[in-house]
């Protein structure tokens, strides 16, 4: 694989800041969305004649609805602090991939139509008319932002380019210029319930297959239930967990943890998707509609708690927005936060000594941990700030003997995005994905050389898919990326249930029925 039609950057020991090279990535643009998907999301399918006026109107509307956008358009002093912080700039050298360069694509239009200075002295303040060329630039460069928020950490005013990319995508959608990848997927969730378009029966087969695999492996009957009314916990997890590698090994791990905790749980076929792509396209309405499915599922299945599986942007929407979008959650058990992260759940059990973990099961690996951008900078775990860094590391250290962190400048809230977040995880954006992964892989390569690290654990479906695809471009192995709960799964010594001693006939029957599907899924 890994045949590149572009130049793959060479890794360096520390990521160097490249010289500015204008238009180096101007050719990159994702496939356009089509009528049917645009329609499903409530957007027009084609660029109307008066698109410019419509876009300016929409911009005015958003400026009145989002304080972030309004304040950030005005406040940037061009100090330059963010200019060398974006992985896409570091990987492509294109100055429009510097966060402020990206913002300025919108800011120049904002200044032209919404400020006195830009109306009267456009040249002086760098204001520009909203022309077709500017729109093309928008489409190209606002789809080279993974909304990872690294820039917002270093900006003296906290200017978050993600907010601006989201607004830009919303404006473009409103004039019929949508992106295929995101919009097709959202339409799929409305139709089927998850991003991959896996219908209920397929999910059921997959989950049964997992039960058998685990049983074969361990001799213990661990359940992976679907649509079970009255279960205590609703698990909402990215649909990639149902079949992609290494995601599915994480899902196996969640099931084992629930098994050991002795709680009943279920997945919902109606809300079988944690990732909320409504955020990527900046559409509050779509994001809300997607989130409401989780509420409906929780009510229908009469659960008491909601737990989210490993996913970065999904956890942002879950932790930071779910209460806003689909709350209040007063019908759930008030003793637990809504929602909870699977890591919070597992960590509690570890602290209480309820998990019997055999670290030596992971001795074939030397691990490092990739802080997923949206978990790191847009959410929290546990009760204290920074829990999102400490809890996954605590789990790692409880399940593995060999663990080393990457360079301090590239982890925790300064972590680099994997390069595939924010709606860019599509093959038509392969070049930007590969180049954007460079800063993270520089740091990974460094600990591989110096500490002998063999594997990198992550807690995000996008990170896992992205690295699986991108690592080979840099001469690394695709299976060097693992799920955190895969390590938990490896180390966890299961407690046998009453019926586990000798597998009875029912189990054997089930097994034969579903063998083929299991292979497909794995």
């Amino acid at each position, binding site marked *: 694989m890994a045949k590149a039609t572009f130049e793959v950057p060479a890794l360096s020991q520390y990521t160097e800041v490249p010289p500015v090279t204008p238009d180096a990535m101007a050719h990159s643009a994702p496939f356009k969305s089509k009528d049917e998907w645009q329609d499903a999301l409530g957007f027009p399918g084609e660029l109307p004649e008066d698109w410019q006026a419509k876009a300016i109107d929409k911009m005015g509307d958003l400026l009145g*609805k989002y304080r*972030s956008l309004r304040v950030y358009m005005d406040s940037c002093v061009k*100090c330059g602090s963010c200019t060398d912080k974006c992985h896409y700039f570091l990987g492509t050298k294109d100055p429009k991939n510097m966060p402020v360069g990206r913002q300025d694509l919108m800011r120049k239009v904002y200044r032209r139509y919404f400020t006195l200075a830009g109306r009267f002295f456009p040249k002086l303040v760098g204001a520009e008319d909203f022309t077709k060329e500017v729109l093309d630039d928008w489409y190209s460069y606002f789809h080279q932002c993974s909304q990872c928020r690294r820039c917002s950490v270093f900006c003296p005013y*906290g200017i978050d380019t993600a907010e601006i990319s989201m607004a830009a995508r919303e404006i473009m959608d409103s004039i019929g210029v949508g992106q295929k990848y995101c919009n097709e997927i959202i339409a799929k969730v409305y139709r089927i319930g998850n991003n991959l378009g896996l219908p209920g029966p397929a999910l059921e087969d997959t989950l049964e297959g997992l039960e058998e695999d685990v049983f074969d492996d361990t001799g213990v009957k661990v359940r992976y239930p679907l649509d079970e009314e009255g279960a205590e916990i609703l698990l909402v997890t990215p649909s990639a967990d149902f079949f992609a590698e290494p995601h599915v090994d994480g899902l196996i791990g969640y099931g084992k943890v629930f098994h050991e905790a002795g709680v009943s749980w279920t997945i919902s076929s109606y809300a079988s998707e944690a990732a909320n792509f409504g955020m990527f396209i900046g559409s509050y309405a779509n994001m809300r509609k997607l989130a409401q499915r989780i509420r409906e599922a929780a009510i229908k299945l009469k659960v008491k708690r909601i737990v989210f599986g490993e996913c970065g942007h999904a956890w942002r929407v879950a932790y930071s927005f779910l209460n*806003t979008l689909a709350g209040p959650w007063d019908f759930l058990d008030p003793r637990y936060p809504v929602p909870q992260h699977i890591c919070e759940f597992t960590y509690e059990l570890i602290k209480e000594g309820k998990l019997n973990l055999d670290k030596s099961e992971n001795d074939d690996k030397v691990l490092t941990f990739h802080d997923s951008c949206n978990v790191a900078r847009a959410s929290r775990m546990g009760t204290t*700030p920074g829990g999102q860094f400490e809890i996954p590391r605590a789990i790692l250290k409880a399940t593995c003997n060999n663990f080393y962190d990457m360079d301090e400048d590239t982890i925790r809230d300064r972590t680099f995005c994997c390069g595939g977040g924010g709606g860019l995880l599509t093959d038509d954006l392969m070049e930007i994905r590969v180049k954007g992964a460079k800063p993270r892989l520089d740091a990974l390569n460094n600990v591989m050389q110096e500490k002998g690290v063999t594997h990198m654990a992550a807690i995000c479906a996008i990170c896992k898919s992205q690295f699986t695809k991108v690592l080979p471009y840099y001469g690394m192995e695709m299976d060097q990326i693992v799920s955190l709960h895969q390590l938990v799964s490896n180390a966890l010594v299961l407690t046998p249930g009453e019926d586990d001693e000798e597998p009875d006939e029912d189990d054997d029957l089930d097994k034969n029925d579903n063998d083929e599907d299991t292979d497909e899924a794995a």
Partner: protein
Amino acid sequence: MAFLTNFYAFLFYFAAFVLVFGLIFKIVQYSRTPAPLKIPTTPAPTTRSGVVFRMTREVVLFESLFRGNKWTWIFGWMFHFGLFLVTLRHLRYFLDPVPFPIQLVQPFGIYGGLAMVVGLAGLWVRRFAVDRVKYITATSDHLILGLLVLIGCTGLLMKFVFHTDVVEIKSFFLGLYSFDIKPLPGDPLLLLHLLLVASLMIIFPYSKLLHAPGLFFSPTRNQVDNPREQRHIAPWAKRLDQQ
């Protein structure tokens, strides 16, 4: 002289009007615009007082800039702290009697003036020397720096070389409070200093100088990290719930 005095009196009334109402307009606009989602850059404080502490560090120490770029931080902080001392020192022209702390700060104001100009010079050099910063610099960025450097230099020249009658200046500005126009000294340096200051006041609400009020309204910095504990919802978003 009467013409110049009247001109400057009018100019300062106008500049003060633009500054005050321009800023009020912007601040009202910012505070009326809802922030529909919780977007603090995490790790973020989980309490109000934590947020006040975070914001104080940003305003006083430029914490994020410090993490981002040491050179910009050094020059930027020098400039702003210098500007702050200069502002305190200048209060003696506008307050009568001069409060004791302002009297104390007078000598430091001069160092402030020097720091301010050095800081500005450093920031300006970056706009030519660093290719990334050069790329994002517009003409207006140069002009604002030039304006501030000129204000600083004219001020320092008055302080060290061509002295002016500060008592008379004070009576001019105190007179403006009661629409009683007193003569202003006619020194060219002073007139230039004041002309530039008035321009600065006028452009303030229409330029990137809005970063000063903007910082306080930045949702990534001023929000409490408690979305699971407390439901946060904007009025326009609430209407979607009711549909």
